[in-house]
């Protein structure tokens, strides 16, 4: 293919019509509080595992809402279930329980 000295960046557009929202619906049924998240990032900022790995509950929730499960699960597989995020959440979401529920619904061991 021709080289023009610049390249094409793939579109970052999220097509929710193509995304699988069914599994996220199951998660919402089990953990309705997931919809309370306002993506403030307190959980990520206080995360001990996040210092050394890509662990971020805020990002995981965002990616799950957009139907991008594979990327979302990457953000919680380093979680040690210490529960610090639950203490700091201003919306009082039981994030520790939420992580466990995500693992159950999305079959993450």
């Amino acid at each position, binding site marked *: *293919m*021709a080289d*023009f000295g610049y*390249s*094409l*960046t793939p*579109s970052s*557009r999220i097509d929710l019509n193509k995304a699988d929202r069914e599994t996220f619906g199951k998660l919402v049924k089990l953990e309705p509080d997931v919809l309370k998240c306002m993506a403030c990032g307190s959980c990520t900022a206080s995360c001990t595992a996040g210092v050394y790995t890509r662990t971020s509950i805020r990002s995981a929730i965002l990616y799950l809402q957009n139907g991008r499960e594979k990327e979302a699960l990457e953000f919680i597989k380093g979680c040690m279930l210490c529960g610090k995020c639950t203490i700091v959440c201003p919306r009082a979401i039981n994030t520790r329980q939420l992580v466990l529920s995500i693992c159950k619904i999305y079959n993450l061991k």
Partner: protein
Amino acid sequence: MIYEGKRKIWSDYQKEIPDDHYFYVRSCIRQSFFPASERTFLDIVKNKLQKDFFETEHHTTCGGIAYHSDAIPQETVMTIIARQFALMHKYGYENYVCSCITSFGLYTETLETWREFPELEAKIKQILWDTCKLEFSKPAYLAHASDIIYKYRNLIAARAKYKLIDKTTGRPLRVVEHIGCHYSKMFPSKGVGGAEYPYVLTGMIEAWGGEVIDYPERRHCCGFGFRQYLVRSNRGYSLSNTHKKFESMEPYKPDMIITNCPGCPYFLDRWQYVISEMEGKTYGENGHGIPVFTYEEVAGLVMGYDPWDLGLQTHQVGVEPLLDKIGIPYDPETKYKGPGNKDLGQPERPSCLK
């Protein structure tokens, strides 16, 4: 829904367009990208519709490309614009119409800045006097040339030889309308229909028989972005913008694209070649691209102008499949013949795009 409230909001985006007597200024880049568009515009309004449009060879570029590329400051641009207004005043006109969207945005920005900061207007008046010994007065009305064609769309439809309809099936052509960002995104009340629902091209398409496609990235920029394109290493941003639009409009199978900006038709047309060379992908039927037109070219086509007189041979994406669809006759032998049958030479064929 509160209809009274909606009506009040909508009334802010209605644009009263004077019927006649305009001072016309050309675009610096449109004349090289789409050389026949402005000539066609003037021929339609002056000779076909018998309106009073005046142009002078003394006007210059508005300086928009240099301004948006950070090469010259705003006061320089304002002085250039003040000189154009001085020419309009000298020839006895009050209605100002420009061919270029960048110019239209810049004129609007300048007039709004002077309204907010009268001391700046006084300063520019002094600079213009010191440098050119000219005095200007602001136009009573500022229009973009697409506003004018929009205003006359029904007059053009009444004189039309062809409609934007597939002649074999009778189906209205599916048309993508693309509005230049500087038309109404900066000052929504200055464009027909505002920034969210600009009606200027939609009105033309509907009047001439086509069907407008509403697709997700309809209001997305073409990607010109001045510095995004002018600096070679940034051109990937420009290309990716256009690519995003094409990916979004592809499922709706558009027959053609109409634009009202100098940069948009250029990039929507030429990037189809680059995408085809880079990715091997084309967006039209049977390996063709989607033909891209300026609104003057489409007005000319429906009024029965010869496609090669409209300069359609300078487009990257071939227009012949669309001409066949509408039923517009053309002579393939004269495609690359200029005035006096002069041979213009033929461009190199792309490896992928038909």
